[in-house]
């Protein structure tokens, strides 16, 4: 049959962030799949080097909108390790609680997105409605729905008072009941199962070879979880089970995520009960002594990795971030082998991609020029972009004034 290459992205309704995939199709069957990352490069690692450690906490928090607590905790943990700070126990419990609340909101969000990708918008509407419960709790505890701003070097900024504990426990009860309902739906609704099971197969051996992390790996029976294998915060004191599944397909990934939701509720109950009294922070120095440290954190999407190197000043020498999506994105090509076009959105969505967290570099391919690398300053880049658009016949100069006139 005739072969066609269709572009999925950089702008496409299936993708929530710009990223470019190119799919070679024969009819509806996928022959080849390739991904090109780099559309969301924001230079965050470089920006971290130019800010103080305290400012970096807020910057790393903005690497990802959904797992914002993940990145700030991972960064703060690395800095604390270099500075030799031991945070108070209450602070480590609060970090754990916020982290688990974040996991709940992220997994509920994923469930809705998965529903939307297979055309089941009702599931999206209901899960996102219930997700509001946990968003409200997060806003109540930390002061914001996303980018909680809860961490600081040496502890946490916000306490959980008894009335909030009561609210969280109440919310968990409602959410647990709703999650049971969604498990019921996911395992019984015929059309949903038809679309999820057997789709995007990733065998255990492939998952290990390609380095799949988080629910993507655990759904292929790779029993790995940083929370258990390398405990941080208060996870070593909590009892929980690492949810794995051997379906090795999108259905398995959905089961792992809803299973993790149920575990999170248990962990939250235990953490809230056992949280000791005490101070929230220890005094952190402004200048961090020279050294380097790595930090791992089990984000809702998988293992998140931060590396920080300090040189004795108040700014880090180097910060390196590896978001879980980078580890998982390679598996998509494997999952789509011999797949159908219709399964492409759900297979991509099943790794719960977060592309803008992933992008650490942008490569600009220019055919023919193989000269030495060129460095561009911010002003150069600005004029370059204006010229580039002008050549295409678009002139944005004076746009603000024009807009003002209309308004």
């Amino acid at each position, binding site marked *: 049959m005739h072969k066609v290459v269709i572009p999925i992205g950089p702008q496409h*309704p299936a993708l929530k962030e710009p990223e470019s995939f190119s799919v070679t199709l024969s009819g509806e069957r996928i022959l080849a799949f390739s991904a090109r990352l780099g559309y969301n490069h924001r230079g965050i690692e470089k920006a971290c080097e130019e800010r103080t450690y305290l400012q970096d906490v807020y910057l790393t928090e903005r690497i990802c909108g959904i797992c914002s607590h993940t990145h700030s905790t991972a960064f703060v943990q690395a800095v604390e390790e270099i500075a030799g700070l031991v945070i108070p126990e209450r602070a480590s419990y609060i970090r754990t609680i916020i982290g688990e609340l974040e996991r709940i909101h992220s997994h509920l969000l994923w469930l809705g997105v998965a529903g939307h990708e297979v055309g089941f918008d*009702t599931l999206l*509407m209901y899960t996102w409605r219930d997700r509001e419960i946990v968003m409200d709790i997060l806003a109540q505890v930390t002061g914001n729905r996303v980018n909680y701003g809860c961490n600081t070097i040496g502890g946490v900024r916000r306490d959980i008072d008894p009335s909030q504990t009561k609210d969280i426990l109440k919310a968990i009860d409602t959410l647990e009941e709703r999650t049971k309902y969604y498990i019921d739906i996911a395992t019984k609704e015929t059309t949903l199962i038809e679309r999820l099971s057997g789709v995007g197969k990733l065998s255990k051996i492939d998952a290990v070879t390609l380095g799949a992390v988080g629910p993507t790996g655990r759904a292929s029976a790779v029993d790995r979880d940083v929370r258990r294998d390398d405990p941080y915060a208060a996870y070593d004191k909590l009892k929980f089970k690492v949810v794995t599944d051997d379906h090795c397909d999108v259905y398995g990934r959905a089961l792992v995520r809803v299973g993790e939701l149920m575990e999170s509720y248990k962990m939250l109950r235990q953490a809230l009960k056992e949280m000791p009294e005490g101070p929230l922070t220890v005094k952190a120095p402004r200048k961090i002594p020279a050294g380097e440290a790595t930090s791992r954190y089990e984000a809702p999407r998988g293992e998140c990795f931060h590396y920080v190197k300090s040189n004795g000043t108040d700014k880090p020498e180097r910060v390196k971030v590896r978001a879980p999506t980078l580890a998982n994105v390679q598996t998509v090509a494997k999952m789509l082998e011999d797949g*159908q076009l*219709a399964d492409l*959105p759900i297979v991509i969505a099943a790794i719960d991609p977060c592309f803008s967290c992933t992008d650490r570099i942008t490569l600009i391919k220019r055919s023919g020029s193989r000269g030495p690398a060129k460095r561009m300053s911010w002003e150069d880049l600005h004029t370059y972009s204006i010229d580039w658009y002008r050549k295409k016949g678009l002139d944005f100069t004076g746009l603000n004034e024009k807009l003002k006139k209309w308004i």
Partner: protein
Amino acid sequence: MKALFNIFIFPGFLFLFVFGLSAQFFDRRIYARLQNRQGPPWFQPLADFIKLVSKEEIIPEEANPNMFKAMPVIALTAVVTSILYIPMWSPKALSYFNGDLVVVLYLLTIPTLTFFLGGWYSTSLYSKIGAVRALTQLFAYEVPLLMSILAPALLANTWSLTGMATFYSAHPGYWLFNMLGFAIAIVTLLGKLEKVPFDIPEAETEIVAGMFTEYSGRFMALFKLSIDMETIVAASLLAAVYLPFWIGNGPAIGFIVYLLKVLFIIALLSLSRTVFARLRIDQMVSFCWKFLAPLAFAQILFNLAVKGFIIK
């Protein structure tokens, strides 16, 4: 003069325009309420239509401009024509002859064909994939739909919709025999109107907007409008074939009963698009041939038996 009035005002274009947009609102509102949402305000379909009409239309450079422009108009024309043969508030349609059932069914196939041609001639990759899917889907649902509508016609022993309405109003209660066919027709209608679980040709997460990807402005508005009108016409057809009761009590009551029947069918469609996930095209085709076609055949056999043992 009367013919012009029938075509352009009632029950032709203007009536279908108003009723189509209201039905779209009804569908969207019910869909929203089933999902525990607020839903759009009543003027939203009209506002969408006006917005689309006032927007610039872009025709792709590589598209065939004549085909690209003609298709929305043809779709609309076919739909408006077919309403004339469907009995609405009395057993008699505005125009009828023996065999108009087949004509209506074929007129209702034309919109899908125009979607295919419009998508194919806009030459975008997404449109082409959507267009091929639309045609594949057409072959899957058309046979069960035809067979399930054939069964009541067999029972009434006529090929005319008017004749069928006359038969069923003369034999009240006989429409109950066709309920299996009604269920099949509702399911296939979801395929015809390209709604979840059969919105495969325009599955937005896969192929953007399917065959409508390149359409914009007025042409898009006409396509959207013809889909809205097709919903009404198809629902009227189902109401006339499967729910032929309480007709012939004068135009006023008959008209209200007709509106209620159509809205009931649209509510059924909204409900089914709420509770299912979109199927893949291969699953859709095998579902239609493996389940719907044999069931529709069973309905035909059942009706033949009824005809043999009860009526005669």
